[in-house]
């Protein structure tokens, strides 16, 4: 019973049947009463007709009248009777008017009337026969009404089918699979009840299509991103084979090993990219300043190597709902980038501040920065700044962006407000967890 159509049809059919049964019963009782009244009227008419006629009452039955429905007449207090009907046994004591009497084991409906000559007549009919007639006419009325019910059912079925036609059309549209993304549903001529639902579905389809598009582009870019390191590995392997002497052989084997490490790191990043978006959604609440401190501590040797002044300007306690590994990846990538691009002896400031229900993780460096026309696109996967010689595959910022978005935050890149128009300021803003 999961079909709305079937459910609707069965419910309506039940209601119609119940309403039909109730009104059928009502009609039956009403028609029955009417028929009884009609027959009483008939007895009264016959009575008054006979009362106007002098002489012994005589009703000769015609052949085509149902013998049970026949009216009998008798004169009270007379030995002679028109026939040997039980009416003759009615006592003379009885008052004028309509009575229901038991006569010789049968129930009768009788009218007693005093004629002008003071003789009294009685007109009657057995109740059984009257009931039969009344029931017959009542049943006829109910039957013709009941015949309407199947017609109604068919009509209800047709109306339901017609009303559901837009839904069947939508199903067909959804099933028409185009490249794995369902096409958007037509939003014209929709019932008002369905419109918000369809519009919501269209928005969902739009989001899925966008997501799918991004994933496809990412996979294509990933394949491209892997080409260069693999080309390097191929050439390095060939070089190793061609090494003219032992010293060269060792040097070239080392180069190949470095190449393998770099390719492995690229693969890790690709996996991070796919994995952390899911991981960032966490039920765990952590203090991101603790994670930031320990991750920055791990990067200190790198900073010392380049004599970069790396340190915290501020580290507020900031409870955020995020997976610790995911936030550590954010810190690693952003601080790692700053350290990679900043000049020798440069400066990298890290800060975590809490304000207005949000935690802000801030990294500022005095390195070359990113030209303003590239800031918009730099977070896209495999995009690298064009003004500097690249180190990586251009995945770091993209990974950070994905994690931050999944955790409900924002990633912003800009120029530090130090008035020097140089360097880069990266802001990650995350919603604070409810205490």
């Amino acid at each position, binding site marked *: 019973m999961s079909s709305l159509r079937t459910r609707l049809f069965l419910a309506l059919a039940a209601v119609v049947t119940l309403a039909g049964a109730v009104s059928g019963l009502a009609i039956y009782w009403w028609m029955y009463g009417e028929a009884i009244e009609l027959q009483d009227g008939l007895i009264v008419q016959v009575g008054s007709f006979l009362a106007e006629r002098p002489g012994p009452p005589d009703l000769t039955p015609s052949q085509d009248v149902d013998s049970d429905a026949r009216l009998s007449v008798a004169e009270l207090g007379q030995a002679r009777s028109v026939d040997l009907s039980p009416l003759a046994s009615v006592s003379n004591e009885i008052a004028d008017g309509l009575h229901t009497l038991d006569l010789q084991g049968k129930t009768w409906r009788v009218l007693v009337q005093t004629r002008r000559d003071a003789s009294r007549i009685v007109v009657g009919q057995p109740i059984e026969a009257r009931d039969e007639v009344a029931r017959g006419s009542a049943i006829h009325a109910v039957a013709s009404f009941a015949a309407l019910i199947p017609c109604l059912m068919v009509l209800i079925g047709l109306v339901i089918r017609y009303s559901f036609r837009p839904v069947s059309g939508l199903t067909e549209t959804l099933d028409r699979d185009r490249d794995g993304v369902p096409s958007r549903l037509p939003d014209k001529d929709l019932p008002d009840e369905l419109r918000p639902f369809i519009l919501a579905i269209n928005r969902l389809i739009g989001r899925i299509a966008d997501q799918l598009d991004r994933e496809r582009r990412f996979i294509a870019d990933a394949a491209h991103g892997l*080409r260069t390191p693999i*080309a*390097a590995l191929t*050439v390095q392997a*060939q*070089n190793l084979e061609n090494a003219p002497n032992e010293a060269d052989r060792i040097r*070239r084997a080392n180069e190949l090993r470095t190449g393998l490490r770099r390719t492995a790191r690229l693969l890790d990043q690709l996996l991070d990219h796919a994995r952390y978006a899911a991981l960032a959604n966490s039920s765990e609440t952590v203090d991101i300043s603790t994670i930031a401190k320990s991750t920055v501590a791990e990067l200190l040797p790198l900073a010392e190597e380049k004599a970069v002044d790396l340190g915290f300007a501020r580290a507020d306690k900031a409870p955020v709902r995020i997976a610790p590994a995911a936030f550590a990846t954010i810190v690693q990538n952003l601080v790692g980038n700053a350290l990679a691009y900043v000049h020798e002896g440069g400066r990298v400031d890290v800060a975590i501040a809490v304000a207005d229900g949000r935690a802000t993780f801030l990294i500022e460096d005095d390195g070359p920065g990113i030209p303003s026309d590239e800031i918009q696109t730099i977070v896209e996967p495999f995009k690298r700044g*064009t003004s500097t*010689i690249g180190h990586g595959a251009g995945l770091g910022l993209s990974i950070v962006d994905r994690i931050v978005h999944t955790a409900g935050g924002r990633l912003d890149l800009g120029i530090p407000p130090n008035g020097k128009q140089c360097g880069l300021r990266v802001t990650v803003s995350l919603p604070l967890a409810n205490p």
Partner: protein
Amino acid sequence: MRILLVEDDAMLGGAVDTALKDAVYAVDWVRDGEAAVEAATCVDYALALLDLGLPKRDGLSVLKHFRVARRPLPVIIVTAQDAVEDRIVGLDLGADDYLVKPFEVQELLARMRAVLRRQGSGASAVLSSGAVSLDPATRVATVHDVPVRLTSREFALLRTFLTRPGVVMSRSEIEERIYGWNEEVESNSVEFHINSLRKKLGPAVIRNIRGMGWMVERT
């Protein structure tokens, strides 16, 4: 034969640099588009290997620049872009060949030889002058059909002469063609290698034109 290698990826650039030097080419390796344009204006390269995704100046723009330069520089595009449209754009802009990463070193070298061959006089893969011939693919020289083993420098020198037979080349022109930027050149090394070639191939193969330089005869 001096090659301009334009590749921004340090690892791939380094590896190709080594592979080309193994194949006895003189290599200048630059890592961005502007450096490539600058290098090509200073030095007369035999061939350029050009990556497309370059910092500072896009590879296609570098290619356009090469095309309007005085002497056409043969270019092989070496890139990760494998779409047919990319190839068409590259070839239409005047690239002589298009190689998609990753590639085998042997294929790169074979394509380079093919482009250089087309650039030179004939369609024959084997360079020759008189009784001397040289197969750049196998690096085997023959004199009267007798194979002769050459050192790398000797091979580079002989190839330089045989690619432009009948042209007199000065010492600096020869040095420019067989040594890269960061290779140290001793003052008499060209004469030294020419002498050893003469010993192996016969004294008449390389002629000295006094005051001008050296040449091999066009036959």
